[in-house]
């Protein structure tokens, strides 16, 4: 029972890491930018969700509002900053570094703005269903109806993403623009627009991750920083290029951490995430799904 319940808890936290990993991979593979600002975009969207919850007490309204806000913020970051930057700095070391530095700066900027608007104190909101674990006979396991809800929501978001990417014209444009932007343009794909849509999808996924994780933690301007790091580890485990890899990488990380927390030591859990990150990069940089090219669905 302990084994099974640890697995379930890992699945639930892993689902959230997967969403963040997905957000990072979407931006990385279309724009070649490691988007540190993703944590900032997600925190801003989560605060907007918090605003809705504190006014209406309705989690189910807050989630879509945060998702849309996250998508709009993502699109805005691309149009206002990244696209302009790419036009102005076209080659040399600055062209590779500048966007990453800008996202790092943006993360700080968004966090302090959020702090100025909502204050730096911890906020909390309740889960829409109970966060007390399921009870079987006399045993209560840590896995709760809310954890189940997290898994279901994450699966729905990923299923929608997978349908969009694999079955629609927009998805084909998104993949073509990410893999070979020049050939995509020569085939008529409006690559700039399609990239912005990719940033919007990423922003939406990050926002959902933020709203899902907050009832278990609390909300403050930097409360999603750890999630960004874990999302990044998940993305690296999955090979950085593949959406499916990001989903699997996040879940693998979540389950791994849950087992270390439960069976080894709580103080070792997060350091071990970084050990995993380094080991994957040293041993199999293309990730667990990676082939030689490492690119896929």
């Amino acid at each position, binding site marked *: 029972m302990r084994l099974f319940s640890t697995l379930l808890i890992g699945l639930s936290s892993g689902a959230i890491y997967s969403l963040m990993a997905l957000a990072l991979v979407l931006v990385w593979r279309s724009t070649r930018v490691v988007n540190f600002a993703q944590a900032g975009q997600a925190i801003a969207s989560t605060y907007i969700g918090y605003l809705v919850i504190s006014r209406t007490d309705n989690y189910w309204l807050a989630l879509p509002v945060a998702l849309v806000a996250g998508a709009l913020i993502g699109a805005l970051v691309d149009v206002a900053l990244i696209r302009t930057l790419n036009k102005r700095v076209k080659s040399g070391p600055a062209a590779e570094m500048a966007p990453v530095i800008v996202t790092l700066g943006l993360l700080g900027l968004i966090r302090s703005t959020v702090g100025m608007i909502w204050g730096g104190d911890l906020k909390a909101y309740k889960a829409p269903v109970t966060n007390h674990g399921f009870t079987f006979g006399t045993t209560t396991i840590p896995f709760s109806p809310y954890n189940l809800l997290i898994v279901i929501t994450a699966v729905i978001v990923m299923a929608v993403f997978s349908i969009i990417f694999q079955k629609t014209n927009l998805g084909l444009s998104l993949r*073509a623009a990410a*893999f070979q932007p020049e*050939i*995509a343009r*020569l085939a008529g794909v409006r690559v700039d627009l399609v990239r912005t849509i990719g940033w919007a999808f990423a922003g939406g996924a990050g926002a959902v991750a933020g709203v899902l994780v907050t009832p278990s933690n609390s909300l403050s301007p930097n409360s999603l920083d750890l999630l960004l790091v874990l999302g990044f580890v998940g993305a690296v485990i999955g090979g950085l290029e593949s959406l499916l890899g990001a989903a699997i990488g996040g879940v693998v990380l979540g389950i791994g951490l849950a087992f270390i927390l439960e069976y080894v030591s709580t103080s070792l859990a997060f350091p071990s995430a970084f050990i995993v990150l380094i080991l994957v990069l040293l041993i199999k940089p293309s990730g667990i799904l990676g082939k030689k090219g490492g690119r896929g669905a």
Partner: protein
Amino acid sequence: MSLIIENLTVRHGAITAIDSLSFRVNERELAAVIGANGAGKTTLLRTLSGLNEPIGGSVTWHGESILHTKPEDLVRRGILHVSDGKTVIPELSVKENLALGGLWRKDKKDVVVATDEVIDLFPRLGERLTQSADTLSGGERQMLAIGRALISRPKLLLLDEPSLGLAPLIIDQIFQTLDSLRHKLGLTVVLVEQNAMSALGIADTGIIINLGKLVTVGKSNDLKSDPNLRAAYLGY
């Protein structure tokens, strides 16, 4: 109604890749641009398709300028560039690569018709629709790249070294297909080639360039038999 290039100049940093180049290609004509490696052939095509920005000169197609326009907008005006090397997207299936050519088009019925025509023309693509484009041979990739362009219903086709890296037999096949296609569809074609003999074999006009400058323009038959040109630029 033609493609008119006047005093076109393109720079890569300190290097002048295209140096006040002028020539014209009439509608429904096939012009072969011949020159050695580094002559500026690829730069020329990239400038015509909007990938490179020139620093001077003008290019008009059907009387309207096509410079300083995005490639994706030129595609909507019927100008399709089949670039050399990685002309297909290896991460996508053959079917998806073809579908890209019709994504932007509003007339979806005609996209279906055009796709069927391409599969009739290149049955080997039809047999490999669900395979990843990565698994195709060089010749099949070239067919896929040309097929994708045809689904966009091009009027002006810009082809960069379709013979590159292909076996002689496949080269003959590709050139024969090109020749019959352009007559059938009434295409205007600018064909850039190092393989001068094959290119001039199907071209109306030959344009020889060297170090970004025009050497000579002439009917391809005349160029083929000019002994000086043969020795200096045509390599046979």
